[in-house]
């Protein structure tokens, strides 16, 4: 394969191909079908991924240890009330209201804790100490408490027939602080016991 022969061969093939080039008619629907097929498959994939993500996020528990327990308590009380509304053991309205306040108080506690630790989580994430999953869980928590708060306010409006959400929030906040003080006090006692032991 000398230099000369290479160039000859190349020239020869080129001239062959240029002779053979011809125009082929393509239907207008071809690109349309192509694009729509592509779009459809992309949309399907997106939906599939979103569905999977949603299923996963429902499964993963909250990063709070008690995992919205007060919410469950509230609904447990409420449902048992509706079931036995015509029976004798009717549940007091005050009980259900206090459960709702407890629920609101815990939401406020969550909120305070999340905003307090925002910087810490950022640092840990930047340090590379935290897995992606956990950080996502943490970020999801902000949305969750927002939803929870809205739900609480809705329930409050239903129970008391008043639309004064501000008052409810104030009560919850006070309850939250009182709970914190109570807990602190208990811890100090425990610590004292621990030291005396």
């Amino acid at each position, binding site marked *: 394969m*000398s230099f000369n022969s290479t160039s000859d061969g190349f020239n020869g093939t080129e001239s062959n191909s240029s002779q053979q080039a011809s125009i082929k008619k393509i239907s207008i629907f071809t690109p349309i079908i192509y694009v729509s097929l592509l779009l459809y498959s992309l949309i399907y994939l997106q939906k599939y991924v979103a569905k999977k993500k949603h299923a996963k996020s429902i499964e993963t528990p909250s990063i*709070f240890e008690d995992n919205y327990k007060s919410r469950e308590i509230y609904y447990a009380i409420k449902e048992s009330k509706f079931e036995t509304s015509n029976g004798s053991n009717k549940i007091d309205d005050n009980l259900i209201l206090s459960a709702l306040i407890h629920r609101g108080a815990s939401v406020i506690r969550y909120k305070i804790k999340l905003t307090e630790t925002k910087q810490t989580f950022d640092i840990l994430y930047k340090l*590379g*100490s935290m897995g992606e999953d956990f950080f996502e869980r943490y970020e999801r928590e902000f949305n969750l408490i927002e939803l929870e708060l809205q739900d609480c306010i809705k329930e409050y409006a239903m129970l008391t027939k008043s639309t004064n959400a501000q008052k409810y929030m104030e009560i919850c906040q006070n309850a939250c602080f009182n709970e914190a003080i109570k807990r602190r006090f208990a*811890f100090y006692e425990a610590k004292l016991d621990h030291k005396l032991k």
Partner: protein
Amino acid sequence: MADSSSYQYDENSETFPFFLLTILLIVTVPWTLKVVYDLLFNNRVISLKESRLKLYGIDKETDKENQSNDLKKIKTLEKLYELQDSKKTDEFKKFESEFIAKQNTKSKTKQIIILTILWTFIAIIYKSINNNSKIFESGIAAFDPYEILGISFSSTEKEIKSAYRKLSVKFHPDKLPAGLNEAEKLSFEENFIRISKAYQALTDEVVKENYLKYGNPDGPQQLSQGIALPKFLIDNGFYSLLMIVAYMAIFMGVIPYFVSKWWSKSSQFNKQNVHVNTSSLIIEKVFNLKKGSVIDHITVLEWLSHAEEFKIICPELNSEDIFEVFMNHINRQPKQNSISEELKFKIIAKTHNLVKFTLVVASCFNHLELSIAIINTMKSLAQAINTNADKIKYELLQLPGVEKLPELDLSNSLNSIKNLEQFFMLEDDQKLKVAGIEQEDKKQFMTDLKTYTHTVPKLQVLQHKVKVQGQDYVSPGAIIHIELKVLLTGINWVSSQKNQFNQLFNAKEKLNNELEKYEAIEHLLDTHKKMTEQETLLPLVAPKFPVTKDLEYVVLMVGQGKVLQTPIFVNNLNWSDNLTGSNYEKFDKKNFKQLIDEQLKLNKPLQLNVDDISGMKTSYITIPCPTPAPEKPGSYSFKVYLDNTGMFGNDEFVNVSYRVLSEEEIQNVENINVQKRRLAGEIEEDPELSSDSESEEEEEDEKTDESDNNSEYSDINTDTDDE
């Protein structure tokens, strides 16, 4: 399909083998060289002793010149290992030496097998190239005017001409021999053209230039592109399908598989080499910790028992079993039957990294109490001591050979001996009683103790200051760091003489101008260089811990009951001169103490002898501060915890206070400095050195004043004792 293609294929395997050969050689040659190099120079079977020394920066083979300097260091390290090994259980000793051996001799057999296969491939390809006559033909066909004319490269013009004439006579179309057929005629003609071209290439200017530039007398040639694969692989239906399948398999199967495998493996462990599940668990636990709740090392161990790492090491054990292993370890309880010693070895050794990570998380959450509990967990695991069970006296359990402390009568005065410092002040016989050692073991115990005091350092903070780089005062908003001057002595030294030592060392450093080296430009640029230049600390004496642990100090900065920044681990401090120096033995600690006590009683100015400490060295710890100095002038302070991560009774706590100066004060200081400098400038011309000493005295006064006001040393020991 074949006709429509405008590409050339490598029908005769002229290019493809070269391509393959190049790629193979690029990979194989450097790899082989590396393996051969390793085999020749790095594959010495290193003894346990040597590999241990290597960990602490001493390599007997490579730095022979340094050996005399390091000799004492090596001796100390060897003594340390001897002491540790004599106290270690046989099982742990065996596992540790296996572990170290495994780390040092990386198996090369796998690499060698792969290399052999690669070289076999190279040999096959090389042979096929050699056997392929087509390649040589095309090589011959290349244009070389010297070869065509049959002359050497160094021929003169005359020789070229004569050679051309001879050949042209032979091949000239007019002078062809009779009786040739068409083909032969054509070849003669071709030859003639080649000859004349060759001649022109060597004589004609234009043609010569063409030849030199493009390798061809006709000028630039059309570049030919081709595929370095035989045609049958691409154009033929079956093989082309195979080719596509192979490509698809590689790009859609093999590469994504390996990448995803690598990715999932790397994303499984975080930057601190802790499993992400474990890290999530620990972060969640710390996050959910209620403010003010009671936390101790047991809580931390309970958390750690759920770690994913242990599920990987021993899937058959649940978290309760792991927790039991921890508790048995720190309670120094004898073997259980159900869990093998090897598993225990692995489990306890793994905790090191996990506890450290937990400390980082706790400090990120600014949790002081938890951080201290975690540091205690580190110590508990390293020394196998449960501080809850052995109230008050647990420090003494760290002494070599002490398994259990004897019950002393309440009336016995020795009952008040609680910590190591008190212990080392006792007479020999009293030591035996406190540690519960029988008389017949006295000799062994005493030699062990002697080694112990030479291998276990005690950290004492001599001086502390908040500093700003390049100025000797703190201005508002300046970037500050804390500088601690510390001294490592033997564990048996008394910690109440820090002030005296500080004065001694200051005097000595001034005398020998030892601080001048820190005024070099690289130290001014990097404040922490001082610290990194220091020696690596010797390993920790912890015979109960499965593997040899590094001795590390952890620095926690605390303000308003909160940890201010992630902990700093310090592993670089000068120790060898202090623990092995000739003055170490000579220095009479008791005498020194008496002297100081007497002088203090008489209220005399201290009279100390600098020669006492001539061989010793101080070290520096520099800590960057998380925030710049406050904008408002006034007095502020940091609390600094300096904890040994591996043993009890060797912690320091200092309260570093500093003053942020106002504009006026700064002006004053600057003025004084300018005056001083002016004075110093005059002194250079002035033969009398009176004013220089004055200014120095002033400086000294300032310093001592400051340190007197600021330093309030208090040992963390006393705190824990109260509990």
